[in-house]
Structure formats: C-alpha cells, structure tokens
C-alpha cells in the first residue's frame, strides 16, 4: 500500500503529511525544552549565589560552538535550496559540511565535558572552598574516593578565582572562564580537613544538574539529527533517482528538525554560559 501525501499536499492542510508530522513533533519538543528551561529558572532564582557556579564555562569555546551550529543551519537550508533547483552535487556538498559541523560541535562539547569531569571543588571543614584540578587529572573523584583509595591527602592546583567571590577588577570585562586563567602551584590538603570533594558533575550542584541535563539532551538531538542527515546523504540518496520531490521533502523535514536544534542552542548559550 502506498503511503498517501508524501509528495502531493493534502487538500485540507495544503501540506504533505511529513511536514505536518515534523511540526507536531517540534511542538512537543518546544514543551520538552520549555519545561527544562522553566526548571532552570526555578533553580536559578532559588539558588544561593554562593552555590551557583557561574563563570566556569569557557565562553570562547561556547561562542565558537555557536558559530559552528549556525553555520550548519545555513548549510542545511542551502542544501535544500540546491535540491529544489535540481543541483544534487551542490546539495551533497552543503550537507557534507552540515555533518562535519555536527561532528565538530559534538567533539568540542565532549572536550568541554571532559574538562568538567576533571575539574574539582573542595569544601574544607573550616568553611573555605576552592576549585581547581587535582594532581594527575583524575576523572569523577568524590569524597568517597578519598576513603576508598585511603589517601592521606590530595594535591590540587587551585583556580585563581572561586565562583562565589566577586571577580577582581582586572577581570571585569573579560569574558573568560576560570580555566583559561591558569592555575596556581599545587597545594596539598590533608584528608582530615576535607568535608566534601566533587568534580563538576551533575551531583556537584543544581547548576551542573540542569547544565548536563540541558546540554546532554541537546547533544542527543544533534547526534540524532546528524545520523538522519548522514543517512539521507548516503544510502538514503537512492530515492533522488526515482522520487526527487519526495526526497527533497525528506531533506526539508530533516532540515526543520536541524533548525530547531540550532534554535534551542541559541537560547542555551546565553542562559548557561553568560547569565
């Protein structure tokens, strides 16, 4: 049985079915990300400023990733335009750039994640706190790790600035993360003085909880979109020979999803990196 309205528009909607379907799906996605954004606002408003790790994300990297995603969005729409004009070779060129941009975005994001997994905060029993990288750059350590490994002390290269303190005047106006400012010499802290140790993982604070939820879900969308676009670019391109309009419609639908992914990031970037 042939699937109806894959090429011709339905008389009532004036659209082919997949287009209605993707917009309904995107509507549900708006509610999904909207719920997470409203959660972010609740957590942000309710957070003690001393426990909201602002300024720990690398803004130049975030800016670069934003430009990568915006570039991929324009190549998606240009590839669709190329197909509409019957230029398959041009379409493939632009979509290849799209997939490369998607992979670059994910690669850069994973580097950012890795930096967080090896970046630590120590709460000392005297009430002082410091952030930095542990000697040897271990991943995912926490308070329990110290006891399991029976470590009498740990060495940390502290950040010059803790997020709970106001930035010194020389940094005002410099949109850089603590990580880019370098670290001081290693400081040895005895286990007995440590109340809590945590990497910048979701359990560190509500900020990192919502940060990893939002960016992780977004990264899954990037991955899913890239897989679909790559499939249509490769094995799925056979349809162009037999049903060019239907194939073009598929590219349009996958493109709509991709633009939505870009759109979500447009809000994620200032909210998580800058505010």
């Amino acid at each position, binding site marked *: 049985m042939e699937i109806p309205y894959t090429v011709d528009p339905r008389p009532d909607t004036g659209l082919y079915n997949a287009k209605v379907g993707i917009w309904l799906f995107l509507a549900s996605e708006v509610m999904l990300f909207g719920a997470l954004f409203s959660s972010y606002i609740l957590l942000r408003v309710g957070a*003690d400023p001393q426990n909201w790790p602002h300024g720990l994300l690398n803004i130049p990297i975030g800016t670069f990733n934003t430009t990568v995603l915006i570039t991929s969005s324009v190549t998606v729409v240009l590839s669709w335009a190329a197909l509409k004009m019957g230029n398959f070779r041009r379409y493939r060129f632009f979509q290849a750039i799209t997939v490369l941009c998607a992979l670059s975005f994910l690669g850069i994001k994973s580097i950012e994640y890795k930096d967080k997994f090896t970046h630590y905060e120590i709460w000392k029993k005297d009430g002082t706190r410091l952030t930095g990288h542990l000697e040897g750059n271990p991943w995912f350590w926490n308070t*329990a790790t110290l006891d399991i490994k029976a470590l009498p002390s740990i060495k940390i290269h502290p950040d010059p600035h803790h997020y709970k303190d106001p930035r010194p005047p020389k940094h005002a106006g410099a949109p850089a993360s603590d990580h880019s400012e370098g670290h001081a010499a290693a400081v040895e802290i005895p286990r007995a003085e440590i109340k809590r140790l945590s990497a910048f993982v979701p359990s560190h604070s509500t900020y990192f909880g919502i940060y990893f939820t939002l960016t992780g879900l977004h990264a899954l969308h990037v991955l899913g979109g890239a897989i679909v676009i790559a499939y249509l670019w490769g094995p799925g391109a056979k349809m162009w020979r037999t049903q060019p309009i239907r194939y073009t419609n598929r590219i349009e639908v996958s493109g709509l999803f991709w633009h939505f992914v870009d759109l979500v990031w447009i809000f994620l970037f200032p909210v998580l990196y800058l505010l």
Partner: protein
Amino acid sequence: MSAHPQTVAQAQPAAAHAHDAHDIKKDVKKYLFVFGALLAGTFLTVFMYSVHFNVMAVTITIAVFIATIKAALVAGFFMHLISERKAIYAIMLATVFFFAAMMYLLVWSRGQLPKGGGWWEGGNQAAHKTEAKGK
C-alpha cells in the same frame, strides 16, 4: 546521480509549489543575510556580556532579547515560518499558548519559589548519599 534527467523544479507543477527556481535563488541571498545576522547577534551577545551592567536584569533582558531576535530569524527564514500554511500556524499558535501558560506558572508561583542556601548543609542529602556510594 548528479546528472538526473528530471530536476525537482521541472518535475512539479509550478502552481503546486510556492518556490520555483527563481524564488529559490532570491531566497538564497536571504539565507546568507540571515546567516550574517545570526553571527553578528552571537558576537553582540558576548560583547554585551563583557560590558558588565550593574543590574543583572539589564544583562538578562539584553541577552534574551538578542536570542529571541536570532530565534525569530531562524524560524522565520530558515524554517520558512513567514510564508507557511495555516495548518502550521495553527500548530504553532497552540504551542505558543501552552508554552506561555507553562512559563506563567513560574510567575504565578513567584511567592513560593525555593529560597536559596543550605542545599549542601541539608537540602541535598540525596546527592550526598548518591555520592557516598561512588568510587
């Protein structure tokens, strides 16, 4: 595959589709203009952040305003919302309504928002227990 005998522009009846080849060529210029505007908006957002306004509300308002303009450009031009069918507008109208209603819940409950502080000292024992099971 690039030597396909029948292009999309030839295959579909001209009246059946809003975009013919000529329109598409004009649209490509718009896409490139929007691309430039999106990049400019991104750098403007970062620049405005570096200005460090004394009032946080000003920083938030500017950042969200620029993000909204960028989102409108993507939705309007890349997703063709400025020239879509009524069915799509109907879907989006319902979405905007429910999205706004969800956001209004925040405003409605502003007097009952959780107060900050003490998340580690007692407010987040679950995270502490989870962590204690760690490595």
